[in-house]
Every structure is written in C-alpha cells, then in structure tokens.
C-alpha cells in the first residue's frame, strides 16, 4: 500500500511571538496540501489571514457558514478580498492556555486551474458561546502554490502557536 501523507514542515512560535507563520518553497511533488493550525494571538486578533504566493491582489473569495452560540448560525460571502480571512484564532482576551484548532485543505495545488480550498476552524474559551467556521474559497489565480503565509488580523501569534504543512499524494 502506498504511503500518501507526508509532513513537509512544522512551525512552532517561540517566546516573544511571531508576526507571521509562513511556508515557503513548497515542494511541487504532491497532489494536495493540508495545514493543521493551533493559534492564539498576542492581542485582540480573532482571525488569521492566509495569503498565497505573496499575492496581495483582490483574488480571494470565500463563503462561510458558521455558528457562534448566542449569535446563532449564519452564512457570509466575502468576495474579491486581498487574503483569505475567517481562519479563527484565539485572542489574548480568551482564557489562558486556549488555542484554536483549524485545518486548511488545498486540492490540486500545482495545477494551472484556479485554486479551490476549504478550511475549518473552531475556538474554545470556557464560555457558553464559541465560534465555529467552515469555509469554501477560491484563490482566483492559476499559478502553482509555492508559499502560504498566515498573519493575525492584528498583533502577533502567541508563543506555542503551531502550524504543520502536509503533502498528500494520490499514488
């Protein structure tokens, strides 16, 4: 049976935090990519933004379905933005030692098609309400994906935040 799931790289944020978590020079030898993210911010950041290949153009669109406890459930459209948003991370105001739990899945990342992807993230902070987001999106570009950068929407990633990039082969 073929082995199909490989770790490419892991980033764990050290003391002092980090402004970004970035995977560069992503090998072009897999079929799909998957990223596991456990994140917390040093400020009031609630989202990590994801940017592909350093592209800051209005090439990112996404649909989100979410539940937020007292806020009920809803769906949202974000079109032609300059990054993928809605990737939940715990803010510094959340209960100590709590981190988000998130995954991003990118199929066919080396193809010359526009890149579809999904991500799925949840927070917990020992409260009645906590957000859960599921997102489907498209990076409206045809280049192969060679780098992915996560940035908190404000502040830095806190110590012990971690991200692991995996490559998945179909053979």
């Amino acid at each position, binding site marked *: 049976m073929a082995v199909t799931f*490989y*770790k490419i790289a892991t980033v764990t944020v050290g003391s002092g935090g980090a402004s970004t978590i970035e995977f560069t020079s992503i090998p072009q030898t897999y079929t799909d990519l998957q990223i596991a993210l456990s994140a917390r911010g040093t400020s009031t950041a609630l989202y990590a933004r994801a940017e592909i290949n350093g592209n800051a153009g209005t090439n990112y669109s996404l649909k989100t379905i979410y539940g937020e406890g007292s806020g009920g459930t809803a769906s949202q459209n974000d079109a032609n933005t300059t990054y993928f948003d809605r990737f939940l991370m715990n803010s510094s105001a959340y209960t100590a030692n709590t981190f988000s739990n998130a995954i991003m899945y990118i199929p066919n990342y080396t193809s010359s098609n526009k890149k579809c992807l999904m991500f799925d993230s949840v927070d*917990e902070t020992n409260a009645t309400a906590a957000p*859960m987001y599921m997102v489907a999106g498209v990076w409206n570009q045809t280049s192969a994906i060679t780098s992915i950068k996560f940035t908190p929407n404000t502040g830095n990633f806190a110590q012990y935040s971690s991200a*692991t990039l995996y490559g998945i082969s179909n053979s």
Partner: protein
Amino acid sequence: MTVLSLNTKQKYGTLLAGNTAYYPGDYESIASVTVVGSSTGNITFSSIPQTYQHLQLRIYARTARPAVVIDNLWCQVNGSTNSGEYGYHIFYGDGTTTSFAGTATGSVSAVPMGAFPGDAANNGFGMSVIDIVDYTSTAKWKHFRGIGGFDVNTAQTARVNRFSWTWESLSAITSLSIDDQSGYSFSAGTYIGLYGIKG
C-alpha cells in the same frame, strides 16, 4: 562499507544499493477496535504514544439503543470524570433546522463525539472524524474539532454535526475512552480507529 549489487554488479556506498529509501509516511494507525459479534461497552485507547504532533479519531458506529434513532457518543480523557475540565459546543442540522448548543465547564463530565443511529436504523451507521492538535503540549488546553453525522433515509431522524470541545488540562493525553451517552453498547460492525500524525 561497499555493497555490490547482485543484479548489476555495480558497487554502492550504502546498503540501499541503488534502491529508493523506504519512508513510512507521517500518518499512522496507532490502534483500532472493531466490534464483532455481540455488543461492546465503552472503547478505550490507553497508553497512547507521545511521539506524534496530532491525533485523529475516525469513528464508524451504531449503538444498541432500541427505540430512539439519534444517539450520542461521548468521550473522557485520561479517565477524568471531573466536570470542571470539559466544555463543548455543537453546531448541527437535521435537514430542516440548524441549532447551536454549548457550555462552559462545570455541567458535563464527558464531551460529545457526534450523533449516531441506534439499532433501529436497520444496518445504518454514523461517522465522525475528530482532530486533536498538539495533544502532548503542556502549554495548551487540549482542543478537539470534529465533524460527522448520519442519515437513515428518514426525515429529521438524522443529523450533521460540527463540534468542538476542550479538555481543560495541561497534561498530555494518554488515554481516550468513548462511550454511549446513555450507556448503551456499541453494535457489531462499529469501528473506531486512532491515528497519529507526525509534526
């Protein structure tokens, strides 16, 4: 050391002798339980290796609950029944409505692993996939993220679930025990697999 290939007579500097190195991959089965024959009570994975970055549980199950179709599985970590250590949230739909439920710590002594059919489902099964990140970290409460559900081809007696929960402890996870919320056994054919993901 020099190795001589018996096929090509070529000399190599390593024992690989021209072969591609075998790499076992970074997603491995740690253990699995399959219920065969009679029903089984709780399913526990103990002595979980501390050598991975993340864990994943994959559940395919039905319970022996005879009358009610929607049943819930729950999980306890490291044998803890302390309600002060568990909090959870669920976002779910049944084909007509969506709902959100959850709690901070103090009200439950285990946390949800998804909705599954009882035996009334007539060979129907439900499934969940649960990801546990950084399960050995002593700096983080342990955070579980899962998705799953089931359908038995009957209106509103099925459910799709997205759930999230914490075990509010800085201890590494060494055991996971999965049980029916109401104490029913797992039916034959149930399968639960625990996987380790390297980092």
